[in-house]
């Protein structure tokens, strides 16, 4: 008594069960990310002018690190290629090559996550600052000679926390050079880093680039984190297939190859989401 079509396709549908299953799962995932992308569109279309004072735009722009993002895109695309090669190696009965390509795939996935967390850290230590006199900047904060960091969350400040948690009454702030298209409030013509010495009571608003700071960051962090979870989940499953799960290759090679195909389909989907995500949040 076994469930039919776990390895061979059913003649009239041309699919084995798991392949249909993964396509259905992906359909649902498309609706999930579709919902989030629609949210992005609606928030952006509705964003009011001047809500993001530092660059006087309705929607913060150009704050993400494009070279790193591009590199990460390349990393993911590479992994998509290697996952296909891994599957093809199984089809050609070459288990060693399969394992090699799978290891590369998982390595790419982990690199992607590593790079992403570097980027996250960059944002969590980057600040938006507004002064009582209306001037606004983005830049880095120095409190007591230290840059508050992401890994020590207790030192990511907003204004209230800064006042409450530290006994300092003045800070240093390294303002970013003004972007050509930024039309910032900052002093005209400032094209390089500028050190500001500020008393805390000159400050009207101070917050790191955290989700709570602006709906742009909110949606950016939410979608990329959810995508990151998918990458992590995918990497774990693929790693499982490459090592402990590979036992199945000896007993049911056909079913094992199917599993790799299904895993690969999921991996392509994760890649595809990123390919939409990258231009939408980094470039547009």
């Amino acid at each position, binding site marked *: *008594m*076994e*469930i*039919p*079509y776990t390895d061979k396709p*059913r003649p009239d*549908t041309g*699919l084995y*069960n*798991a392949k*249909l*299953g993964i396509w*259905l*799962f992906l*359909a*649902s*995932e498309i*609706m*999930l*990310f*579709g*919902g*989030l992308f*629609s*949210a992005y569109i*609606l*928030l952006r279309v*509705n*964003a*009011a002018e001047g*809500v993001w004072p530092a660059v006087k735009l309705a929607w913060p722009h150009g704050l993400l690190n494009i070279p790193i993002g591009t590199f990460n895109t390349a990393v993911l695309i590479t992994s998509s290629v290697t996952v296909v090669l891994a599957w093809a190696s199984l089809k050609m009965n070459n288990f060693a090559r399969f394992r090699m390509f799978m290891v590369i795939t998982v390595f790419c996935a982990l690199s992607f996550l590593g790079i992403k967390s570097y980027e996250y850290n960059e944002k969590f230590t980057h600040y938006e600052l507004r002064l009582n006199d209306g001037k606004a900047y983005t830049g880095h904060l120095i409190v007591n000679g230290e840059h508050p960091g992401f890994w020590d969350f207790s030192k990511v400040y907003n204004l209230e926390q800064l006042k409450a948690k530290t006994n300092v009454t003045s800070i240093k702030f390294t303002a970013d050079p003004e972007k050509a298209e930024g039309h910032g409030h900052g002093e005209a013509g400032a094209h390089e880093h500028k050190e500001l010495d500020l008393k805390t009571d000159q400050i009207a608003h101070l917050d790191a680039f*955290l*989700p*709570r*700071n*602006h*709906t742009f960051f*909110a*949606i950016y962090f*939410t979608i990329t984190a*959810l995508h990151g979870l998918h990458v992590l989940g995918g990497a774990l499953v693929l790693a499982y297939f490459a090592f402990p799960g590979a036992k199945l290759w000896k007993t049911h090679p056909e079913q094992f190859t199917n599993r790799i195909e299904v895993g690969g389909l999921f991996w392509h989907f994760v890649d595809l989401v990123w390919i939409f995500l990258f231009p939408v949040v980094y470039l547009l």
Partner: protein
Amino acid sequence: MSATHTSTLPQHGQGHSHSHDAHDHHEPNFWHKYVFSTDHKVIGVQYAMSALSFLFFGFLLMLCMRYQISHPGEAIPIVGSLMERVLGEAASGGKMSADLYNSFGAMHGNIMVFLAIVPLVFAAFGNYVVPLQIGAIDMAFPRVNMASYHCYWMGGVTWFTGFFLPGGAAKSGWTSYSPLATVAEFGHSFNGQTALLVGLVLLITSSLLGSANFIATVVQLRAHGMSWMRLPFFVWAQFVTAFLLLLAFPPLEAAGILQLMDNVFHTSFFLPTGLVVGGSQLPVSGGGSPLLWQHLFWFLGHPEVYVLVLPAFGIVAEVIANNTRKPLWGYKSMVYSVIAIGFLSFIVWAHHMYLTGMGTKISTFFQTTTMMISIPSVIILTALFISLWGGSIRFTVPMLFAVAFLPMFGIGGLTGLPLGFNASDIYLHDSYYVIGHFHYVVAPGTMFALFAGVYFWFPKATGRMMNEFLGKVHFWGSLVCMNMVFAPMFVQGFKGMSRRMSDGGAIYFGKDVAYGADPGVLKLNNMILASALLLFVFQLPFIFNFFWSIWNGRKVTSDNPWDATTLDWATPTPPPHGNFLKEPIVYRGPYEYSVPGASRDFTPQDQKDPKG
């Protein structure tokens, strides 16, 4: 899946000392048999028992609320003191605070929709019956099926923790409208709403695993000869429902994640700029959109109401064909209609939002699609009515419930039309009329179909019939009481009574404050309460009957006690693990009743020769 292998099945049921070859067998201890089972029938029963308990609990919540609104400011007898002991402050003196009333209301709605009706009508009946009806040995992914149930269960538990979190359980309606849902308990990140959202993510995961599994099963595991147009209508209804769940739920998951971010990390996805709460501006960035929540919510919300009702159509169709002893009238148009409903239900959602100021053009669009979707619904209902025509009807208990479903759902659907026109909805929106509308669809509608299904398939699952007399008491009592509970709500709604008042409207209609409204509508609250209590009493015969019959009901004398045609009745009773003794082969459509020239008045789908 060889026939020789499956033929040893009956012994498998009773301790299997023989089969050494069956590597997938170990001693089934309690855990394996009842908790970690991958058998679709066990999972179906697990869903049924859990969901029926939730149904009962949801009903109790509502009874408390009904008592409180017809006796504002008075302690609730019996349960009041218990509530105070469990929930403390919020129920001090045995009275519900307004916040607690809101919690109960929100939890009643959520529990009924997500933990009771959908799991019953889709997961329980679908799991038990669909594989049997298509002639499969199990679902396509049995372990995924088990995971689906476990996620469901964890989701339910997570929700219940909400009652004990600061501020109590979620209290912003089953629709969790933002910004209310975020600001209601802004001081605590881990409040009832957070528990609700986390639970929702688990429930959506469960529904995703379940629905993908259903679709794969129907597509891949149909028996030989079971072509698409030979599928019982029930299977079609479940199949379309699975697509609704698969595709409509994820946007709600997206919305839930965003609201979770709003609640826990203080983002502003749904919080507009300059939101003032309790006199001071909320310390958030703003820039979000409350309307976005509503769009994402109702994008699920409307398909969800069809999730509630399509499987009910399926159950009713099976029961009616079986008890009229004639084929369903217009089987094919019913199938096409159910598919059409599936598609259309994705483009009507904003008829829940006419009053939000989303714009008249958008309203007009959704008004049009809403009218369009009523057409296939009416086709199905009409086909079922016509199916009754000229049949020699057996008024068994399942049939009573199925027949009553038709006019009750009819009332629900017809009262939806004035809500679908945006001119009339602007008056009726958020009044008791809306409550009346959807309860007619779900309570005497879907729930009657559920009862029909329980009485109908009970002998297959247990080998015993439920008691007929108690069943009839249950039926007539429920029919009368349901109508006495919900019909007055239309009147209250017409008179402008809001659906969300913890004092039942006293503040608007009471003797101190008169807005020219008719205080008579308040009296209806008392009648509704009395009927609801009576409705409770009439569920007792059902509960007793259900458990009593498991052990003491009349034993069935055949595997097919209702003389039905579909494959679910071609299995042993109760069906063993693996379902069929030999691989079923299908020769004909699902409803070959009273075929001229056949030897009996029914010809099962797996019978080759009608004269045989």
